[in-house]
Each structure stands twice: as structure tokens, then as C-alpha cells.
């Protein structure tokens, strides 16, 4: 079963992250690199990406003529996707365990940041409905 683990954060949280010390940033980046390797080594890795920051984010809607209308000023409380992992595991419990590992990524001073990780199932093809 495939799951996506999503790291979401508000704009304010991104701004705080930008002010972390060099040491804290290095520790966090090192953790993320090791975490992805861990997923690969254990044979559950499918994909991972980090996303650009919210200040560059735009919401696009089609105008009446089909041309893009962009919107870029967002409420401070809005959450943005910072990055994600897609994993292929035996079931939800294993996905939760892996998400908890990601959540324990080191924050300032090396204590676990305990970031919320949103876990969602990636839909598959046909399951047998039995009808």
C-alpha cells in the first residue's frame, strides 16, 4: 500500500525556520538526507521532493477567456506543503511509524521538532468490491 507523508507548515513557520542557526540547519538537513537513505535501504521508498517556499507560491484560476488569473497573497494561518515522501509499505501502521520518524527530525538545539506529518493513502487501481 502506498502512502504520502506530507510536511505542512505556515508561512510564519517557514520564516522561523529561515532563522535557524547554521548548526541547527546542518543537523536538520543531515537528518533528512539520512532519513531518505533509510527509506531507500529498507525497500519502501517511492519518491520524495522538497518544494519551493510559500513566498513564491501562486494560486491559479482560469479566467473567462481561459487565461490564468494568479493570486499570491495568503493568510498567515494558511498551511503550505514543504515537502513529501511517497512510501510503499505493508499497511497504515508502518506508514505511521515512518511518519513519526520524520516528525522527530531535529529542531533548534537538536531536540525533536515534532512537526506534524500528514499521512494519506495513495489510491490504487481496482480493488474487488465483491458485488
Amino acid at each position, binding site marked *: 500500500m502506498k502512502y504520502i507523508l506530507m510536511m505542512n507548515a505556515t508561512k510564519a513557520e517557514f520564516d522561523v525556520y529561515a532563522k535557524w542557526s547554521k548548526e541547527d540547519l546542518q543537523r536538520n538537513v543531515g537528518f533528512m538526507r539520512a532519513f531518505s537513505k533509510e527509506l531507500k535501504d529498507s*525497500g519502501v521508498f517511492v519518491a520524495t521532493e522538497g518544494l519551493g517556499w510559500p513566498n513564491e507560491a501562486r494560486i491559479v484560476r482560469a479566467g473567462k477567456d481561459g487565461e490564468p488569473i494568479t493570486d499570491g497573497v495568503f493568510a498567515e494561518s494558511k498551511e503550505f506543503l514543504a515537502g513529501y515522501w511517497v512510501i510503499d509499505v505493508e499497511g497504515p501502521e508502518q506508514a505511521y511509524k515512518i511518519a513519526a520518524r520524520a516528525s522527530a527530525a531535529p529542531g533548534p538545539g537538536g531536540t525533536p521538532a515534532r512537526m506534524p506529518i500528514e499521512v494519506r493513502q495513495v489510491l490504487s487501481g*481496482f480493488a474487488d*468490491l465483491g458485488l
Partner: protein
Amino acid sequence: MAERPSDTPLEHLLRELTPQVLGAVVRRFRDFAAAEDAVQEALLAAATQWPDEGLPDNPRAWLTQVAFRRMTDQIRSESARRRREGEIALEASRAPETTTTIDAAAEEDDTLVLLFMCCHPALTLSSAIALTLRAVGGLTTAEIAKAFLVPESTMAQRISRAKQSVKDSGIPFELPTTEERAQRLRAVLHVLYLIFNEGYTSSAGPQLQRVELSREAIRLTRSVRNLLSNDAEIAGLLALMLLTDARRVARTNSEGELIPLMHQDRALWDRAQIAEGVALISAALPKGSVGPYQLQAAIAAVHDEAGRAEDTDWPQILALYDLLKRMSDNPIVVLNHAIAVAMVHGPTKGLALVDALKADARVANHHRLDAVRAHLLEMAGDRDGAVKHYRAAAGKTGSLPERNYLLMQAARLSTELRLVDEQE
């Protein structure tokens, strides 16, 4: 049926030969992980050389010899390394000769031993599946990765970890003891069943290019049956696969939408596969050792033999589910049994059984509970209730086509409800 690029006679031959060659190499060198690598190299050599040079007289002996040589080379370089490191060892001189003397009687056993090894209960199910497809099925890591929609490096890692687990758990290269045999065979059948299911439940519509796992599962189960022709449950599993797979084309429309059994165009069903499945299960059942796969195959056969959905012999299906329910503790079986009860004794009786399942934590939150309840509520004329449960099921399913189907059932019923309101 879409043609697979991987369906060439050469690749078919290599897949058939893989377990036989691997078995011979493991038997000789007793190192499963290294033997598996050596055989993969031999297969690669064959795939590149044979198209140009033509088939050797004895393809199996050719492959075995190449794999033996790889193993010997590896052992020699390993002992050379150890000598360089100051260890006095003479392994190289003890390395087996590269001549191929294959004990014909051991050959068939070897394939079975491999299968029991790959499906060992010490492995996780996903490891067992990957290892079985590679070591017994002869698929490449790339093909298995593609079939499961994961990167090749991930599948390679999964296979290498599985091989490591085989090594660590010290599973001997021999057939299970008589005491273990029944349980170990159940594990093998379960893995084959899961491979089939993975293929059957995901190879449709835009995913047609995937290696067809269900066809692969049928091929593997067929070869297991040839090796253990007296086991009625293997025959039952093979029959179940054939009878289910026979409906594959009718299961979706041209838009890739799911069509339930009762609405399928039965003219599209594969008659030859149904005939083979029916013959298999008819021969297996009278043998007396009836198990769950045989019963499920018998149920599939009753469905497949009905010319129209309304001709389905539901009392017989109900009788078969009664037996199956006594044999297994699977709540999904209870759910299917409830449908059969509804078809024979009316939806109210079926709904009572579905309600009783709410107390079972294993299915209480399963989308099929809601889907079946919706279906039975619709049968009972409770459209409001049916809409509610179709939508609840849609919110829980892990399958996109299924979610579309469930939402469309809810939409269809609510349109009908509006029309009724307007008429009143």
C-alpha cells in the same frame, strides 16, 4: 488482450528455466543469495547472446554452467582476497568443478524447495512476493518494480533484504518436514494468491503496460500443481484464479469504469478459461479434502456458469458460503455470505448479518461493510440509506476506480430520489 513486449518465446523459456537452474546452483553451493545473483547474470548473458548466436542445444545446461562458473569465480576471488589478507585458505581448490551433472530427480524438488524458501513465514509478505517472482518466476528486478509501481532501486533493495533474511534465519535448502508441510504450503498458496490479486486488482485501464502479475501467478500456480498434482487446494487455487481472471475484460468499460458482476456482459467472459477452471474444481472437490480455495473456486464457478445474472444459482452459492464460513475466520467471507443470504432470503436477513459485523474491529471501518450495506439497503428499497452508505464507502476505499463507482451509485440513486419527489 494487449500484447506484452515481454512475452517473447525467449523470455518465456528463460522464466521457465530460472527455478530449475537456480535450484541446481543452490543445491551445489548452498549459498542462496550468491546463487541468485549468479543465475541472474547467467540469464542476462543468455538474453544478450542467444538472439545472435542461436539457442544452445541444451539451454538449461548452458545456463547452469554459466552460473556455476560465476559462482566458482566468485569463490576464487573471495579466497584470493582472504589469502592476500593473510588468511591461509584453500577454498579455491575445493571449489566445485564447472561440469554440469544435474540429478534429474532432484530437479523438480529443487523448484519446490525454492518456492518454500521464498514463501517462508519468516519473511514479510512483500519480501516473499518479490523474491518468489524473481527466484521462481524468473522476472527481472526491473519488471517486478514496474509491476508494483516502485523505483527499480527500491525493489532491488527489497529483494536483497529478503535474501539477507533467508540467510539470517538459516532456512535450510530442503523440503519442509512432514509436520511443517501443511502450514508451509498454505504460506506458498497465500503468496501466489496475493500475486494474482495484485495483478487482478490493479491491471486495468491505463495500467495495461504493467507486467501482468495475474498471468504470472497463474503460470506459477500451474507449475506448482504439476509438481504436487495430488493437492486439492492447489487445484482449487488455480481454478479460482482461472475462473476469476476469465471475467477480466468484462470488468471494466471502455472508460475504465468498474462494472459489477451482475451487470457484466457475459459474452466477454473467457469460455476456455472457465471450462478449464470448472474441470479443475469438479475434479478436486470429490477428493474429499475440501479447503477454502476450493470453495471460493466453486463459488466463482457457479457465477461463471450462469448465462445471465438472474440465472445465478444463489442457493448453491449460499450453501458454499455456509461451508466456507465454518472453515475460516475471515470477516470478508461473512460479508459475502450476507450478500448470498440477501439474494436467497431477502435483504433484511442479509442486513442483519452485516450489522452484526459492526462489532468486529477488523472490518468495522472497512469500506466493504458500507458498500455491501448500501447495496442491500438499495435492494430493500431504502434509497436514502443506500446513498448515505455508498458515500461512506467512497470515503474509505483505497481504490480510485472503486471510489468513482461508489460515488456514481450514490449519484444515480439521489437522481432517482429527486425524480420521485418531483412526481409526488
